[in-house]
Each structure stands twice: as structure tokens, then as C-alpha cells.
């Protein structure tokens, strides 16, 4: 590999891509240092998958420069391909082959010798908890198992850069945790990871840096903490039985947003136990009856609302 420590693992400048008349990527710039996790965060249709497709040489960019592992993706795609492992959104396993056969297929295509291929396949089956499923066709695997096999196949060639396109979408919470552990282990081993996700929590858990993608543009980039500082705090939502209660509480709590029709009050709060106790003590002291209380922590919708000035599609539909 020709990557020197001073070189970033991935650099992207002015990347543009259209499908027909639809502009999908509108000038993306990225810089991913080696040995870090970079998360592309955004809703469906933001251009996350297209970015991964271009970076992993599956499709060609219309404009811009893409360098992966020091190689130009347009001019020398095979050099890029030799350095990367890809796990797509559409699980890329051969359903008619067994888990072991899938891994050996990858070993053959990476031109490893037979013994080395078998050794790596066995090690990966063990590491990804697939030893039992090794001799069953992939078609019979559960979603989580397929995803683990998929990732294992991308690692047979011992890549220095790994692309993970929504690695945990559709997985149950336990499988998601397992996948996170696997990704952390990869980074510990010095691998650079670029992942896409729709979940702020996931990006927060894993990434050193997060880029926020919206309609083909990067709307923000930074460490998780930097981004969270730009997000408004959470709030506590109070539901009242009658307008009098709402009136009394609203008079007491400055800065709250009231909804006369729903009889609710949104009080800015970090949602901590202390803050809640203070809030409830004040309401109790004034004998105001609260019929329902819910805590809202900032989520991806808040991020988007703040940074793009527009709600995500989902939020707008509500």
C-alpha cells in the first residue's frame, strides 16, 4: 500500500453526481484521516449511498476529485479496489453459497493462496460468531447474520479502508450493539472506516467526525460534540387536563412554548433528574396539576431543523 502516514485515507473535492435530471450530489468535500471513523449522517435520499458508491468505485463521478488510499478513483480504480472493503446496503452475499464458501470466494478473488484463504475464512467465521452457520447457505441466515457475513466478506482481503453503508439499518438492538463492537475493533486495528447512517446515536457512538448530508450537500461537519453544541437542547412536554392548569403553569415558567388547543406546554430542559425535580416542585408548590409529562432529547430532526432551517421529510409529514 502506498499510503504514507501524512496522507489522509480519503479526500474528496467538489464531488458531483446526477442521475438523469436529478442532481444527487452537489459538490461534496470530505477529508478522512487514517485510522478514524467518519460518519455520513442524513435522511433517506440525502446522497449517502451515492457517495459510498462513488468512493468505492462502483459508479463514476460526474465531476470532482476522489482519492482513496492515495489513488485516484477515476484514473486508477483497481488500486483503490485493492485497498478497500465494502459492505453495501443491499447485502452483498451469494445466497446460494454457504457462509464458508462465500468467504473462500472472496479469498480466491483476492488471490490469496489456498491455505491462507482457509485460515482467514476460519478466523472470520469465528470472530463474527458465524462458525455454526459456516456450512449453511446464506439464504437461510437471519438479517443480523447476513450483515455479519457481508462485513466479514469485505474484510477477507485485510483492507485498510472500509466502507459501511447503513451497517445497522433493520437490525434489532442486540445485533446493532454487536455491529458497533465489531466496528470499534476494526478501528483499534488501524482501519479507517467511512460509514453512513440515519441515526444520530450511531454516529455519536462510533464516529470521530460526522458530516451532515442533506439533499446532496454537506450542511455541517465536525466532531460529535461540536455538532451537538449547535443543536438546541431538549425539552419537557407537559400535558394539562384543563386550560386553567395550562394558564397557571405558563405564567410560572418563562420561555415555555404553549399550545392552547392541545393543552400542552414545552419547557426547555436538559431532561436531567435534577431539572425535572425542580420543575415538578415548582408546579407542585403552586398546586398545578400535570396530567402527563414526557421528555424529549435532541435527535436528528432537531439537528436538521437547526442546520438546514427545514424539518426532515418525516418530521414535515407529522
Amino acid at each position, binding site marked *: 500500500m502506498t499510503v504514507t502516514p501524512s496522507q489522509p485515507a480519503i479526500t474528496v473535492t467538489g464531488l458531483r453526481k446526477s442521475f438523469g435530471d436529478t442532481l444527487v450530489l452537489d459538490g461534496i468535500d470530505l477529508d478522512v484521516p487514517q485510522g478514524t471513523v467518519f460518519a455520513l449522517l442524513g435522511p433517506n435520499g440525502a446522497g449517502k449511498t451515492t457517495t459510498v458508491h462513488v468512493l468505492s468505485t462502483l459508479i463514476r463521478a460526474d465531476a470532482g476529485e476522489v482519492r482513496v488510499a492515495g489513488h485516484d478513483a477515476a484514473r486508477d480504480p483497481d488500486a483503490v*479496489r485493492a485497498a478497500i472493503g*465494502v459492505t453495501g446496503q443491499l447485502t452483498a452475499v451469494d445466497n446460494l453459497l454457504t457462509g464458508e464458501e462465500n468467504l473462500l470466494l472472496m479469498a480466491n478473488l483476492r*488471490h490469496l493462496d489456498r491455505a491462507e484463504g482457509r485460515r482467514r475464512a476460519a478466523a472470520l467465521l469465528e470472530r463474527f460468531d458465524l462458525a455454526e452457520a459456516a456450512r449453511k447457505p446464506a439464504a437461510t441466515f437471519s438479517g443480523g447474520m447476513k450483515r455479519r457475513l457481508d462485513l466479514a466478506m469485505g474484510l477477507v482481503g485485510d483492507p485498510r479502508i472500509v466502507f459501511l453503508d447503513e451497517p445497522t439499518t433493520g437490525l434489532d438492538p442486540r445485533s446493532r450493539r454487536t455491529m458497533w463492537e465489531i466496528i470499534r475493533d476494526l478501528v483499534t486495528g488501524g482501519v479507517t472506516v467511512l460509514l453512513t447512517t440515519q441515526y444520530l446515536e450511531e454516529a455519536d457512538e462510533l464516529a470521530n467526525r460526522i458530516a451532515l448530508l442533506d439533499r446532496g450537500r454537506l450542511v455541517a461537519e465536525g466532531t460529535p460534540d461540536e455538532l451537538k453544541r449547535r443543536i438546541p437542547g431538549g425539552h419537557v412536554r407537559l400535558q394539562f387536563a384543563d386550560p386553567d392548569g395550562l394558564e397557571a403553569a405558563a405564567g410560572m415558567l418563562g420561555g415555555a412554548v404553549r399550545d392552547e388547543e392541545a393543552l400542552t406546554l414545552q419547557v426547555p430542559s436538559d431532561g436531567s433528574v435534577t431539572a425535572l425535580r425542580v420543575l415538578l416542585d415548582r408546579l407542585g408548590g403552586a398546586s398545578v396539576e400535570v396530567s402527563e409529562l414526557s421528555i424529549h432529547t435532541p435527535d436528528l430532526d432537531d439537528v436538521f431543523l437547526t442546520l438546514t432551517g427545514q424539518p426532515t421529510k418525516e418530521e414535515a409529514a407529522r
Partner: protein
Amino acid sequence: MSTLSYAVADSATMLRRQLRHMQRYLSVTVFLVGMPIVFLLLFVYVFGGTLGDGLGGPAGGRAEYLEYVVPGILLIAVAAGGTGTAISVAMDMTEGIVARFRTMAIYRPSVLAGHVLGSMIQTMLAVAAVTGVALLIGFRPNATPVEWVATAGVLAMITLALTWLCVAFGLVTKTVEAASNLPTPLVFLPFLSSGFVPTDSMPTWLRWFAEYQPFTPVIETVRGLLVGTAIGNSAVIAVAWCAGITLVGYLWSRRLYNRDPIR
């Protein structure tokens, strides 16, 4: 390793993958081998008595028709194999695994090479099975060993040609259903040739088509090699057709495969 040895190694890997698929999808293989055998039995035992008399030979009847119809049935087997190729390519293209292959540093045409080689093997097995059954029910060719080898060669050429064409069919269609329909005319073409009845028994317009379509020279060549009828210039025309179809199918497939998979 050099580029050439990568090309060979990767194509061999892809071929092994195809052969595994055939083992796991045994029903398709059984259908592709069984269908032409059913046609052979149908034409010999149901239509053969009457059609044989119409050939105007000295013996007439079922035995004479068996001798006449075998090359046509062999071409049915080849065309049916093409349908299988188109379906298996189209199915493969809908799977994520092919996208993965595209992001790996492998000999790029090896995916298609695996399909072509695998289909060739499958179709040649079907051809051998049909020949075997024909021999069992009384087909008695007078071919020399050299003529047998030449027969295998001609059949391999037309199989290669139709396989490449059907790979393109499998790539150009968006669904597996469409891919299974597109090669259907190929299965009918042997009927509109000299495969089942002599072309001079057809109405003029159909006869013109039957004599100039690619299957007829192939069938005439195979028939000449096996039972000693006159070949004339059929062999040359057959080779030209096979080469032409192979080239078109190959170039078309290569172009389709090298497009961006997502557009």
C-alpha cells in the same frame, strides 16, 4: 501474477461459483436437460410415424424420422440452454454480490466469463444427454470419430454464440421475468428451419425465411456430419453465423456490463 494469469484465475473462480449454483439449483439443470429429451420422444413417437413417411425416403416411418430430427432437437437443447443463461445472468445482476465484485480488484469480465463457461458446460451436458437418448431409441449415425468431434465442435460454436447473446439479454432486461421471455424466439427458431421437416415442403415465404436463418446451416452441417447427407456450403455459412452472433453478443454484453450499474 500477470494480468493474464489473473484473468484465468478469476474466470476459473467465477466458473466454480456457477457450477455450485447449478448444483444448488438442480431443478433448472434438470429442466434444461429434460425438456429437449421430452421433445425428442414426442416428435419421434407421436409425430414420427407420419412425418417419416412424408420424407419420401426408401424406409419411411418412425425410424427414418428419428434419423432426420435429431439435429433439430439438439438445437432446441442449445436454445433452451440460452434461456437458462439469460435467467441466471439477470438473477445475478439483481443480487448485491455482483456490486461487490465491481468494487474488487479482479479481472472485470470474469463475472461474465463464469456465466458463459458454466452455461456452455450445462448446455453441452444437455446435448450429450439428448444424443444418448437418441442412440438408445435407435438413432444410428454413420459418423467417423473425426465427424463426431466435428459435430461437437459445431454444436459448441452455436452454443457459445447463443450463450453470449443470452448473456446480453440477461443484462439488458431489468427483471428476471423479462429475461426469461426475451430468448423465447430462439427456442422457436429451430421449428422454422430444416430441423423438423425439409424446407421445400414449406410455403415460399416461410421457406425463404427457413433457408436463410442461422439454425438451418448449423442443422444441415450437423446432419451431414452424423448421417452423411450433403453439407455443401452449409458448414461455411454456419461458421460465419456463429462467429457473427458471438461477436455481437460479446460486444453487446461487454458494453452493458461496463455501464454504471446505477443510473
